[in-house]
């Protein structure tokens, strides 16, 4: 490990050399390579994690460039995951990165992300997030839920039984098509970097000392509203109330 590269991070007393070593020994999974994913990738790679696994089936479009910070005009038409992999290798050649140009689902989830110490959600739909919630519970993988639209976003660390699961606080069997989305409601690029920064900070704190921020953070970057709140586990949760019984957490 090139200590000069990380000298300023090591000088941050809350990380130090032991934290830097912990990051080096970590494997991070990131699902999605859009606004959240590219911001998360950039930060987490620069911080010096050992290995990153990234998955996305999309190709880069012109409208992505407003907020998907890794990509440039020359990348339009190319695979998001493969392009991100190449860019990250140029940013930090010490990071091992593996990319999958595919959509993650229940059938391939464990094969792709089964060895991750932590998963960072950077998807763009609740259906996939509910799947991540169940698969992470099943395979005992902690994950960080992130979401953004217009000027709002939230970040939540999910690792039952230490935290609630996603279904504990989003207890719905339906995903309404009328929920706000970036096509209909738009998005300002700064919320992507803001929520990504919060989620990456949560990730680093967990990776270096297993510290879990149990509060959900919700913010609006236009009004500068910032809220933190704790959601207790739902003892009648249809997803986590039975799955986490008797499990040893990491």
């Amino acid at each position, binding site marked *: 490990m090139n200590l000069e590269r990380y000298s300023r991070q090591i000088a941050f007393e809350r990380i130090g050399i032991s934290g830097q070593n912990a990051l080096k020994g970590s494997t991070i999974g990131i699902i999605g390579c859009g*606004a959240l994913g590219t911001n998360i990738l950039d930060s987490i790679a620069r911080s010096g994690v050992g290995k990153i696994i990234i998955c996305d089936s999309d190709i880069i479009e012109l409208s992505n460039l407003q907020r998907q910070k890794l990509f440039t005009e020359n990348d339009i038409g190319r695979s998001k995951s493969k392009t991100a992999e190449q860019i990250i290798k140029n940013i930090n050649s010490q990071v091992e990165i593996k990319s999958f140009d595919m959509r993650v689902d229940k059938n391939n989830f464990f094969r792709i992300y089964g060895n991750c110490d932590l998963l960072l959600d950077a998807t763009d739909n609740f259906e996939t997030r509910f799947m991540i919630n169940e698969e992470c519970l099943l395979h005992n993988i902690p994950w960080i839920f*992130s979401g953004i639209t217009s000027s*709002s976003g939230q970040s939540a660390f999910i690792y039952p039984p230490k935290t609630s699961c996603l279904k504990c606080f*989003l207890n*719905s069997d*339906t995903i309404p098509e009328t929920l706000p989305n970036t096509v209909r409601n738009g998005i300002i690029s700064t919320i992507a970097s803001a929520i990504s920064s919060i989620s990456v900070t949560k990730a680093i704190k967990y990776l270096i000392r297993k510290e879990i921020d149990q509060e959900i953070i919700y913010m609006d970057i236009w009004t500068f509203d910032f809220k933190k709140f704790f959601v207790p586990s739902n003892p009648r949760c249809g997803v986590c109330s039975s799955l986490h019984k008797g499990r040893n957490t990491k």
Partner: protein
Amino acid sequence: MKITVEFVGAINTGSYEKKQDFEIEEKTTVENFLKTLDHFHESHIPYIQVLCNGKRCAHTKKLKSGDYLELMLMVGGG
């Protein structure tokens, strides 16, 4: 009875002031109050997080006079 409601972030689509007082019936639950609001579809309600007097509460909570609610809609873009 009167409660005060703050609409935070994506839920604040303009139908109401960002912070507004509402007159409601005694023992109204959070869920029933949310159903009276007109700037989101009822199907969005499970995605709304509610803080009551600074603490996250379930939608089954019965409201009291003077309660201060903060409403936040979880968003799913990425």
